[in-house]
């Protein structure tokens, strides 16, 4: 996909995956890579940001003699996800209006 997901859209995608299940960095990156143009090193800063904003918490699970760091979405994270969904919907409608000459649903 040629369109880059950055900032709030990227956060929304991460939070949406985490809303379904707790997971760890490698799997999350691979899931995002299936649909979005992200590099292997894109995710870490996003996770760090979400962690700083208390949108997710981390916990360790033993795996093959070491600890694997899992991420879990918080209540604040779920709220942020709702904001992301709304922002994305608005953005999608506005862009559709321009590139497909669509009439707006709210006020046209």
């Amino acid at each position, binding site marked *: 996909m040629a369109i880059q997901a950055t900032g709030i859209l990227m956060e929304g995608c991460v939070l949406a995956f985490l809303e379904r299940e707790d997971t*760890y*960095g*490698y*799997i999350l*990156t691979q899931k995002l890579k299936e649909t979005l143009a992200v*590099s*292997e*090193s*894109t995710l*870490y*800063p996003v*996770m*760090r*940001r979400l962690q*700083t904003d208390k949108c997710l918490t981390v916990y360790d699970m033993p795996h*093959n003699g*070491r*600890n*694997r*760091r899992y991420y879990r979405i918080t209540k604040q994270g779920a709220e942020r996800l709702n904001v992301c969904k709304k922002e994305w919907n608005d953005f999608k409608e506005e862009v559709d209006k321009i590139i497909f000459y669509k009439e707006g649903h709210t006020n046209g």
Partner: protein
Amino acid sequence: MDKTQYLAQLGQLLKSLPPDEIKDALDYYDGYISDSGNEADTIAKLGAPREVAAQILVNYVTLQNNAEVPRGKGTGAKVIWATLMVLASSVALPLAVAAVLLIISLFVVILCIGISGVAAIFAGVVGFMTVPFVMFEHFGYTMYSAGMGFTGVGFGLILIEATRVLWRSGAGGLLKIMSGISGKVGKK
């Protein structure tokens, strides 16, 4: 480069960050490379430690600037400086190559002026040499040859003098700039 080396380089690039930030990032990438199950392939996909470090540093600086809480003691400027250094290193190399090529081409141009000067003198001398052969037969042609000869030699001398001046000021100025730069780098 194996995982240990990769993480060591990454840690080195992040050393201006608070220790817990460095540990968090290194733990993440340690786990990431292990979880992938293919160390070499994942390290290749991640790219140079410099690129990974740049993303972490930029993100850290951004978060610090957005934070409402006051910053920790004096980390700000140091981290910003380190971030700029990491970002600049990817730009600086191609720029340096371009600068060197530009300087080389400058000297080639100066050299070419000098060579054409020598060629003009040579042509002038050859022009003179024809004078004795035609002197008594064609007065007009003799004058023409002698004139061309003088012109060639004169033009050549001017070009050679120009080369000398350009070379001296070009090389001298360059040496001054170079020593200035290396002095600054050395001091750091």
